[in-house]
């Protein structure tokens, strides 16, 4: 569970990819873009499912940047 030898290899920063990590900030701070009830999915208002979806999107972005830099 610990001390995987791969974990100690250095990483090389990929700057254009890191810029992607700003996207979740723009999306979340722009509150007026998502403060609506429609369109609903399965009865869940947009305000809620959109933000929940961004949890997955931002995790995927971070995973993608890690994959590029690994």
């Amino acid at each position: 569970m610990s001390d995987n030898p791969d974990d100690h290899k250095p990483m090389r920063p990929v700057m254009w990819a890191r810029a992607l990590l700003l996207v979740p900030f723009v999306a979340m701070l722009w509150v007026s873009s998502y403060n609506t009830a429609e369109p609903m999915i399965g009865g869940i208002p947009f305000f809620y499912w959109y933000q929940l979806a961004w949890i997955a999107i931002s995790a995927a972005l971070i995973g993608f940047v890690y994959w590029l830099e690994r």
Partner: protein
Amino acid sequence: MALNITALIVFVALFGLVTYMGFAASRWKKADLDQLHEWGLGGRRFGTLLIWFLIGGDLYTAYTFIAVPAGLFGAGALFFFAVPYTIMVYPLVYLVFPRLWSVAHKHGYVTSADFVRGRYGNKWLALVVALTGLLATMPYIALQLVGIQVVIGAMGVETSGFFGDLPLIIAFVILAAFTYSSGLRAPAMIAIVKDALIYLTMFAILIAVPMKLGGYGAIFAAIPAPKLLLAVPPAGTGGAFSAYATLAFGSALALFLYPHSITGVLSSSSARVVRKNAAMLPAYSMLLGLLALVGFMAVALGVSSMPEFAEGFKRYSNNFSVPALILNVFPSWFVGVAFAAIAIGALVPAAIMSIATANTYTRNIYKEFINPGCTDAQESQMAKYVSLVVKLGALVFIFAVPFQYALWLQLLGGVWIIQTLPSVILGLYTRWLNGWALFLGWAAGFGCGTYLVILNGFGPVFPFKAFGFTLPCYIALAMVVLNLVVSVVLSVVLNAVASDRHKDATVATDYV
């Protein structure tokens, strides 16, 4: 409330299991616990999966799981800011905290104040960073107790008077004992059980309650319109939108500055483990987001008007909404499982927080100012004692002080801890800022922030007015901006007359 025997038996059995694990953890990945980095950081050797459990258990506390749904239950959409908050945290973790891990690993730093001490060579700046961490964490530990108290009360155990306090005292004695003997290994091991129980409870609620109520559509249809969305701001103010955005952003900036977050980061076995976890930890955010909606489920169920829960709501206010929902929907044995999940969910962060404060006190106050010549064994022993004192303090706090004060102090804690951002986070990137400028910037942010919170009647959002526009803003965020301005302006002056840049014990290659 009648005593719920079945639930209580399941609860006690699960609690017994984690107690055993907590003590057994001292023999796990065996090492010399007379070294502070072994007791207080688990020897910096936790791998990706273990760190995922540990930080997940550390940040997504029992109190979070009670208070966030309670917020939606009581006030509605505004409290959903916990979701954008946790979304914005992880890009920051990915970019910033591997640097802290690297420099800490290189120089043997155990706390953020250790780093500030090495980076700026200024023990007074390091002292205020350490004190800020201690002050901000103490009420947080006390709040964890509230989670345990609510579920014990919800099982029908009398929680007033001395015998009412007894279950909580027992829980904390157990916690104190295994933290003392096993250090960070104990919460790391227990976190695995805690998370398994929390995920199980979560999925059960998310399936059972919508089935009972006729789907998510019916749940949201039961929520009155003003609670369902944020109020659209009128002209001339940022209104609820700027409150929502600044609460989320400010909280995201503050979260990983807390000592217990830093303890989690530094116990990783590599910087890569930290980066991988930045992509994996959002799984807990999804859990939190879905759990927040349980507050709405409690509204739709109408638990607050059920006579059997009147007493619980009277005693614990909206914090009773989630326990009430669990009691209403599930058979007794599963109530025991769910409540154990919440109580064990309080033990993990409480243990890590007490370890983090013990590390901070020992390294940055005891060793720096009281006994500079202490041996490694003395240092580790002192940390163990402090972890006991801290927990005793939290226990006394929760019994002696009205619950409301713990909430107020926790709010202040956020305003305080964010003031260490310029020293810690900017310090990872540049040494341009002057140590004394940072000290005065901290003082400005800390002082004005405390004043504003009190002036504002302990509301987190203050309506700042300028040029005929009102901008409601989370006080912590506004005050860290003030802190930054002071730090930068004074650095220009001080760097010109009395530069302290030669005092840097670190070099550029320490950060990668």
